[in-house]
């Protein structure tokens, strides 16, 4: 692909994702920060409630998805923040790739980041809150992936926008959190159904919202992304 000069859309996106992940892998700053934040939040949330009044299993879905949202924001902010130094974004935009490919590449890197945090945070919640993880693991992974896709689609776009404003990292949560409502709410509800031993079919209507959100906002955000760049 690279020998022919200009890579195709998906190849270009993969290159950009690889670049972002390489930066992240060499510094590990954001990933470790997000991970430590998640673990801290898990512990703090446990003590924020009276454990004798609210059972850990009732608490866990909410804790899980709140942590997921906030640790996701940590990674998303980094996504375009890292391009602001030395105006690296200009180099990226001057390269002969579609802007949708830049968005897609950034989103793929963010998705892997969020899923990486999840892969450690979900077992940690299960461990600390004594959840029957193995019983619900498969559907929970499906929920986590669906939720991560929607979160990353919206978050990547808003990260690109927030990086260009005076408020920068302060603005991202203000813009993004209302858009995370139709992700966090269905994900937490579906998780709660699963953890309380209800059949998977009861979580289906919540999963449908997640799937619809993912499809609509991947398309909308990829289409909107070029508008946030041009000068």
């Amino acid at each position, binding site marked *: 692909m690279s020998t022919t000069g200009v890579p195709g859309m998906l190849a270009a996106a993969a290159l950009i994702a690889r670049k972002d992940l390489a930066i992240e892998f060499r510094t590990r700053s954001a990933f470790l920060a997000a991970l430590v934040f998640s673990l801290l939040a898990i512990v703090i949330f446990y003590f924020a409630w009276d454990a004798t009044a609210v059972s850990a299993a009732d608490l866990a879905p909410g804790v899980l998805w709140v942590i997921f949202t906030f640790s996701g924001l940590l990674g998303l902010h980094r996504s375009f923040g890292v391009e602001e130094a030395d105006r690296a974004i200009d180099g990226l935009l001057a390269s002969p790739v579609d802007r949708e490919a830049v968005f897609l590449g950034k989103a793929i890197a963010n998705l892997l980041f969020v899923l990486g945090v999840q892969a450690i945070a979900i077992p940690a919640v299960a461990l600390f809150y004594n959840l029957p993880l193995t019983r619900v693991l498969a559907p929970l992974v499906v929920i986590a992936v669906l939720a991560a896709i929607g979160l990353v689609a919206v978050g990547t776009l808003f990260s690109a926008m927030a990086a260009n404003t005076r*408020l920068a990292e302060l603005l991202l949560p203000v*813009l993004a959190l*209302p*858009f995370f409502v139709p992700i966090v*709410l269905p994900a937490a509800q579906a998780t709660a159904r699963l953890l309380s031993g209800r059949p998977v079919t009861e979580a289906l209507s919540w999963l449908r*919202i997640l799937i619809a959100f993912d499809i*609509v906002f991947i398309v*909308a955000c990829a289409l909107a992304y070029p508008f*946030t760049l*041009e000068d």
Partner: protein
Amino acid sequence: MTSSTRAERTATEYAGPSTRSDGGVDWLLIVAVLALIATVVRAVAFTPIEVAQGAAQKIFYIHAPSAFIGLYVAFGLVAVSGALYLWLRDERLDRIAASSAEVGVVYTTVVLVTGPIWGKPIWGTWWTWDARLTLTLFLWFVYVGYLILRGAIEDPGVRARYSSVLGVLGALLVPFIHLSVYLFRTLHPMPIVLKPSEPSLPPEMLTTFFMALASFALLYFALVRARYRLAGVLESLEDDAVPEAPSVGPLRAEPVR
């Protein structure tokens, strides 16, 4: 700050006819405020008191029209003019979107304030996580975020594009928040005017309601128009405030003595 004093000076000197409103008196706004006062007088003094809810029901004449105009008309216009801006790149469209968002946030704030005032005597609680309340609250957050975003960008072109994107995405978000919060059970009174069957409101109350709706709509358009004009004046000031580079004549060398 020097820039503000310069702007003030320019404002006093400014006499461009293009953005001047007619004589400085906004008649539409005055008419709208008078209509609103008339509506309140009629609602309070000349509309029958509801049997079950008592006087508390009268807040409906402020609450429901504000909700209808703020949530549907104002935020709808933000999305439509945002989408049109991304297509046509006419800065007037962005001005309309910004004006409508500002007025919409005010109207939605009125909804969120009057709702609990009614809810306390009728439901026995200021706030409940009912679907419609939650939806309104989250929309309020989206459009307050929209205004914060606008305030955080200095370049007018970037500001217009970013806020247009957010305006359009905000409209896409509505059905999703709607769906997810409606899967919770709802406590809010179902629509009694805007419903397929006949409106189930006594005729006097219905008249007052439509009068309120009309005056709130009129006030909305008057405010958006005033805000739109203000944006135009501010933009022309921004253009004027940039000091022109002092004209430098052709360079001449002093004769060497």
